[in-house]
């Protein structure tokens, strides 16, 4: 291809595809992600679609968007501000212009900016023509008509033709980013196998867009993002829900256990259930329970039966599981409870994100019922923490709450596919003594976990339940001292897990003025902010992000001591900060909180840090 434009090198760029719900923006975005991954870029993506199942066409409520940040450097968020906005109709422009950087590029389908649609988007005038976009670079392409032209004679129905304009837009973006079209055309051939017309349509539209961009002069320069320096291996894009599901499947395989999942559907956790339901083809045993209580109880049954047993849900579902989680704690059964947090309280904002369920994970049960709490911090590391949650649950005979959230669940990032060998070993709590010496609550002397004896094992028949029990024998008892012992023992068992956890690490300054603290999914935004600040010369700032919350890593206090000030950033009113105040009350914690049901922006964190540093 002759190269007629000048090239502009950028370290990273943010692209947002937007259009009507029927315009296929999610697929368009996915294809662009794949092509970016193949090009060696690091990336993070996030979809943004209407809460309604099907919103009215052309309305602002019906806009569906997909945002991606790609980079020749490591990418931790889908980006605050957008460099390139694709807007297939006026509603999409209206809803998304606020995200565009000054000077950023708009790629619009001029054909759709007609009266009817302008009105639905509350435009009196056509923004492509009234000068209101003069701070941006605008490529108003006749996407619909050129697509129609390109697809004529194919014998496709009108609707299919119209729908293909998303590929025209993608073609423009490909040209803008100097992307080869071949891998994508290969992809069309795979995806639409047996439907040659559809393959043709997509391909022609893509090419038409590409060549249109090439021949137009509106875009001043094409952008080159060099490949990022990522570890070697095979990669794919993955979202947090799939990654957790796969992590659990991997843990089952590695431990030689069958996987049982019992769940009830709920946004944004349902996809874990969908994925594992489809993974019956890998031997997964799945129950769609009648409600969340049944789900967690069935999971307890499956755990007692000796399977790796998990249950996945979101806030309202967790609230319902509370009672049974207490049973798993006192019975000391391995169980993974996945909470893909959404914005609360109550039904709240069910499609939006928040880190609002930490306190509940820590304290939500009646009585003293300690368990493990951990949190994933990126879509791809959901795989690892999904795996870890299963591992810790089984090795330590304890329920584990794994916190993810809406942002991680639907966002995607590249995941290096590990081989099973790479994953940490899972040492099941096997009893090795004589059958006569065994008892249901006999414990490992080091980690205090009991052993996992399951129905079918002769000579180990035993009963468990929710009543207080004598240590070792497991017999019911009202003895006051025994209860005190058991309360402490159950806590101590959790605390000792810390011995196995990796040390908490710091990015940036290893000691100094300010330690920024995050947990779970706030990682991306804070990490980006701190890296940028370091690059800008703020050498005094360190960042540490917690994945293990209960227990905390053993060196937590050690790290905190090295800094003058500690700033805890989280998407709630300060639940982790409060937890730290109870665990390590000798430090003072400052807070930066956001309760907008959406993730942190890197810029917000940056300016908060600067404010503190300059204060």
């Amino acid at each position, binding site marked *: 291809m002759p190269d007629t434009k000048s090239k502009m090198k950028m370290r990273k760029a943010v692209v947002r595809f937007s259009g009507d719900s029927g315009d296929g923006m999610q697929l368009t975005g996915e294809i662009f992600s794949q092509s970016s*991954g193949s090009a060696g870029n690091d990336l993070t993506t996030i979809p943004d679609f209407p809460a309604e199942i099907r919103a009215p066409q052309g309305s602002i409520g019906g806009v569906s968007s997909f945002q991606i940040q790609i980079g020749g450097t490591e990418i931790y968020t889908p980006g605050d501000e957008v460099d390139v906005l694709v807007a297939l109709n006026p509603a999409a422009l209206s809803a998304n212009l606020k995200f565009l950087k000054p000077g950023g590029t708009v790629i619009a389908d001029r054909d759709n900016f007609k009266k009817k649609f302008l009105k639905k988007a509350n435009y009196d005038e056509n923004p492509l023509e009234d000068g209101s976009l003069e701070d941006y670079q605008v490529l108003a392409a006749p996407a619909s008509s050129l697509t129609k032209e390109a697809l004529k004679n194919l014998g496709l129905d009108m609707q299919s033709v119209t729908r293909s304009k998303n590929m025209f837009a993608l073609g423009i973006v490909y040209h803008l980013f100097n992307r080869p079209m071949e891998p994508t055309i290969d992809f069309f051939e795979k995806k639409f196998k047996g439907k040659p017309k559809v393959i043709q349509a997509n391909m022609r539209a893509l090419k038409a867009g590409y060549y249109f961009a090439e021949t137009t002069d509106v875009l001043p320069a094409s952008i080159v993002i060099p490949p990022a320096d990522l570890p070697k291996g095979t990669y794919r894009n993955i979202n947090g829900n799939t990654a957790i599901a*796969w992590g659990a499947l991997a843990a089952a395989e590695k431990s030689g256990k069958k996987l049982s999942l019992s769940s009830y559907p709920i946004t944004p956790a349902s996809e874990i259930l969908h994925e594992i339901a489809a993974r019956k083809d890998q031997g997964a045993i799945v129950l769609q329970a009648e409600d969340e*209580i049944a789900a967690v109880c069935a999971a307890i049954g499956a755990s007692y039966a000796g399977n790796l047993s998990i249950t996945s849900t979101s806030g309202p579902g967790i609230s319902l599981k509370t009672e049974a989680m207490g049973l798993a704690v006192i019975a000391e059964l391995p169980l993974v409870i996945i909470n893909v947090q959404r914005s609360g309280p109550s039904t709240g904002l069910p499609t939006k994100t928040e880190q609002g369920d930490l306190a509940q994970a820590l304290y939500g049960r009646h009585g003293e019922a300690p368990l493990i709490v951990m949190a994933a911090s990126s879509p791809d590391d959901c795989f690892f923490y999904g795996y870890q949650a299963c591992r810790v649950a089984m090795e330590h005979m304890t329920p584990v709450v794994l916190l993810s959230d809406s942002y991680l669940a639907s966002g995607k990032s590249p995941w290096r*596919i590990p081989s099973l060998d790479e994953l940490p070993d899972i040492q099941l709590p096997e009893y090795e003594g004589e059958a006569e010496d065994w008892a249901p609550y006999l414990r490992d002397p080091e980690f205090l976990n009991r052993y996992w004896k399951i129905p*079918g094992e002769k000579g180990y028949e035993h009963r468990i339940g929710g009543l207080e029990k004598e240590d070792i024998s497991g017999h019911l008892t009202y003895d006051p001292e025994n209860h005190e012992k058991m309360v402490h023992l159950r806590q101590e068992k959790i605390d000792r897990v810390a011995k196995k956890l990796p040390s908490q690490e710091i990015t940036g300054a290893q000691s100094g003025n300010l330690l920024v603290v995050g947990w779970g999914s706030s990682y991306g935004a804070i990490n980006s902010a701190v890296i940028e600040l370091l690059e800008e010369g703020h050498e005094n700032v360190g960042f540490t992000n917690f994945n293990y919350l209960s227990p905390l890593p053993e060196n937590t206090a050690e790290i905190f001591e090295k800094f003058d000030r500690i700033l805890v950033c989280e998407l709630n009113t300060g639940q982790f900060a409060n937890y730290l105040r109870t665990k390590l009350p000798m430090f003072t914690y400052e807070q930066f909180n956001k309760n907008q049901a959406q993730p942190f922006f890197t810029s917000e964190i940056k300016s908060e840090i600067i404010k503190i540093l300059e204060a």
Partner: protein
Amino acid sequence: MKTEKRKKNGKPLSVKDFKSDRNVKWCPGCGDYMILSMMQKTFTQLDHAKEDIVCISGIGCSSRLPYYLNTYGIHSIHGRAPAVSTGLKLANPDLSVWVVSGDGDSMAIGGNHFIHACRRNLDINIIIFNNKIYGMTKGQSSPTTPIGMKTKTAPYGSYEPPFNIGELAISAGATFFARVPDKSPQLLGEVMMEAYRHKGTSVIEVLQNCVIFTDGIHEKLTDRETKDENQLVLTQGEPMVFGKQNEFGIQIDGMKLKKVRLEDKDSANTLIHDATEEETQQHIALAKLQLPDFPVAMGIIRNTESTSFEEELHNIIEQSQKKSSYKNLQELFHSGNTWEVQ
């Protein structure tokens, strides 16, 4: 397969093998003792080995039972035993699973899990100890408490229409339902054994006497004097007759049942009990017969064939494994679009 292997290797079990080392703590005279004892007796006759039996309960006097039974067992939480057993049975279909529950446990807080267990037809056996009261919490109404009875929560007499356990179970999909008084140990033993043999969810309602809070509530049915007239003991393939001299019979009248004094001529019309009939109407009608107009039906009211839930699920698992595009996890992980970083 598994079952046979076990049977061969094991020595015959005795009731003692199923007694745990814990003291049984029910009130002296409580009907629960008999149920426990018949379970222990039945368990000696199963094809399953002792270590393959699991007893799961909720909370209540009745739900203490697993502690007294030397098998695997879970004393779970109030109302949730069917849910716990669903997870367990799906995880390991080779186990023989027995759910023990009270009328409060299974009809009040556990109602949803109960009807869903019946619907799914998991191969488990649910024994409901129906003393028509909350025993453990000392005498509150349950969803089977009769209208008019005074309880701690109905000091002016109960005014809530009770559930008929059999009707609810069958309508929710139960393929096996039986009713037995705690005072009929032999029938209880037979019914338990049939429940064991039946593939799918088996519900056994035991009319259990609580000596503290509802003493004598089933007396009209169990009293030597009146029981022949007040119980209609059903036997597969036999006519539905009752009374001291079998002088009464059950016949149909439209879609209802009627009680008739048998004269020679109409005994031909007396219904023959068929628990295996697919249709539910007749079983429901039997389950609903009540004093004083009718005797109460005892024994196995319904016992129909159908695939169990765990079989269905494990079949699908097997099928989908065979047809899967992914031989193993690595293939799954590498499916779709991947790229290499060198």
